[in-house]
């Protein structure tokens, strides 16, 4: 027997036995889960790259296509709603939304990130079935890699958005960026929580992925993306308004508008200034962040429970 082998035997003898498959307790297993996932950060990085590289490989314009969709949507909404439905501020409609293109793009950017994470995350376990059946990994890396890849796409859109504000001369400065950052945090935490939960449930009930696609389409209209919060404020009040505002994505979209839609601050109707966002937006976002963090933790714990049988169900 070689020295190598002896050294190995000695080292192994000193190690305690560990279970082959982790089955952590619901509460006390959290630290371990976090450690396991953190231990796979290199793989996570590679999976993010795989998602990004493989997506538009072999297409002539490549990565441009990830920008094409939001830009096309922007054009459609700008022309149809801004111009034809006359929502934009113009000589015809002096009380309309100023810088309507920026306004829409704030919401579209946020929404695109949300739907990328939730839709992609939901299917992520099934689309990696090959790996899940053959290798043990903390399976959270698959939904998380979708989050990472979506964030990269988001970064490009953000560059376009900020570029547009510079072009129009309404550059967001100072404390506005804090709104942007807070909103982005809420958005990522909230959508990751959903992605983890839905990814796990989807393994057992495949309807979930189709349901999610439809819900994403419907919920698009439940946040002030292509219409302004001011119009909602006038249309519903009381508990319905509270409900509308409780939607994390509504808050996130409003937060993005607060951050990047500078013209919203000087919006006037009939010569009087109006509020483009609710006054206590920062507080709402902070509360939602805390709630989302709790939800993220819960859905990760649930994910851990459900993942035990992934390999035989996918």
């Amino acid at each position, binding site marked *: *027997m*070689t020295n190598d082998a002896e050294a190995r035997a000695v080292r192994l003898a000193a190690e305690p*036995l*560990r*279970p082959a498959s982790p089955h952590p307790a619901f509460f006390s297993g959290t630290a371990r889960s976090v450690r396991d996932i953190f231990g796979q950060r290199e793989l996570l990085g590679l999976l993010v790259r795989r998602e990004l590289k493989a997506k538009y490989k072999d297409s002539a314009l490549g990565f441009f296509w990830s920008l094409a969709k939001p830009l096309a949507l922007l054009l459609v909404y700008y022309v149809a709603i801004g111009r034809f439905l006359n929502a934009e501020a113009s000589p015809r409609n002096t009380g309309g939304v100023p810088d309507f293109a920026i306004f829409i793009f704030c919401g579209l950017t946020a929404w695109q990130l949300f739907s990328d994470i939730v839709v992609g995350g939901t299917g992520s376990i099934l689309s990696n079935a090959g*790996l899940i059946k*053959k*290798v043990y990994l903390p399976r959270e890396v698959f939904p998380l890699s979708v989050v990472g890849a979506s964030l990269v796409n988001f970064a490009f859109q953000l560059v376009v958005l900020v570029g547009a504000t510079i072009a129009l001369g309404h550059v967001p400065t100072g404390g506005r960026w804090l709104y942007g950052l807070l909103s982005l945090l809420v958005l990522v935490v909230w959508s990751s929580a959903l992605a983890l939960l839905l990814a796990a449930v989807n393994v057992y009930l*495949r309807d979930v992925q189709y349901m999610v696609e439809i819900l994403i389409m419907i919920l698009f209209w439940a946040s002030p993306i292509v219409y302004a919060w001011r119009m909602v404020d006038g249309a519903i009040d009381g508990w319905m308004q509270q409900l509308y505002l409780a939607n994390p994505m509504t808050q996130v979209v409003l937060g993005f508008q607060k951050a990047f839609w500078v013209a919203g601050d000087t919006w006037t109707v009939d010569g009087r200034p109006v509020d483009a966002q609710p006054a206590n937006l920062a507080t709402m976002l902070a509360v939602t962040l805390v709630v989302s963090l709790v939800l993220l933790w819960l859905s990760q714990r649930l994910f851990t429970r459900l993942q035990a049988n992934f*390999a035989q169900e996918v």
Partner: protein
Amino acid sequence: MGIPVIEIAGVSKHFAIRKEKSLKERLVNFGRSNLHRESFWALQDLDLTIESGSTVGLVGPNGSGKSTLLKLIGGILQPTSGTVQLRGRLAALLELGAGFHPDLTGRENVYLNAAVLGITREQTNRYFDAIVDFSGIEPFIDTQVKFYSSGMYVRLAFAVAVHVDPDILLVDEVLAVGDEPFQRKCMDRILGFQQEGRTIVLVSHNLDQVADLCDRAIVLEKGRVRADGVPRDALRVLRADFAQTQREDVEKHAAATGAPTLRITDVAVATHGTPTDRVMMRPGDDLAVFVTVGADRPIDGWNVGISVRNTSGQRVLSTDAVMMGAAPLAAVHGTTTARFDLPGLWIGEGDYTVDAALSVDGLTEADSVREGAHLTVTSTGRYVGSTFVEPRISLV
């Protein structure tokens, strides 16, 4: 040696595969859903301890639970009851190129696959040249893997796989890839692993490979341990089981087909004494094979032959009356018996079967009996293979 690195205690694995995965199916089949359950025990009450530095072969017929056991050890599946415990780092090679993406280049896939197998980026950087060199596909390393031939694909995948640095390596039927020189490289690598004191658990249908590589073989059958011990003994049990299964198949087949006019009514073998359908012999014994033929009308111009096959169905020897220059044989009416003498049959250890076949007027088979009789050859265990020798070694 001697430290248990894998401890399996009272492990059972039950699969209940529901075929309905959608809401509609669940609603439509609500209440009847048990009808749509496919339920079976893949493993039952398994207790095993595998010690560090050993190489263990898991063998058994398809569906015996080998791969399930490997996945339980790898933590990919969780046991229904019982515990699986490990010591040390584990890597599972259950599929070559797990995580390979066809649209990425070979280089990108090497990094991805390495990360999947638990090799750090730093290690991969260090081994990268060695990996490419081992795979022998250097000119294509920056080509997308979807353009690779299947051989190139597995070579690259295997090259990554052998650079893992585990204490326990699980291998599922992935050793036999590539051309012969490449296979030899793979084998050398495995032998290297053994010398470094790593524990290897491999599933294989190649029993010769198991006999060569392993110091312990575990035969699984229907989720239970059928035999466990040194490969020679364990594999003997498995070979006997395979032969038994084949025999049952033959009987079923015979029952299903009709009777020709010229038939083989019996095949028997004898070393000495009365012919029976099963003999134990040692290499070099004289063997006689008796084929009894019945005809309901007189038939001449017939030919009779026998072959001896090993358990994997390879023909060890084959002969017939025409080949021996003994044709034409006297016409047969009623019953007659042909005796084949095989004096001094030097065949190697293992189970063999004797087939017999009849033809008339040099045409196609009139009747045949597969596995009409059985030989079990026992010997010294100093070699494997179909011919017998008494090997000796000395330094000159």
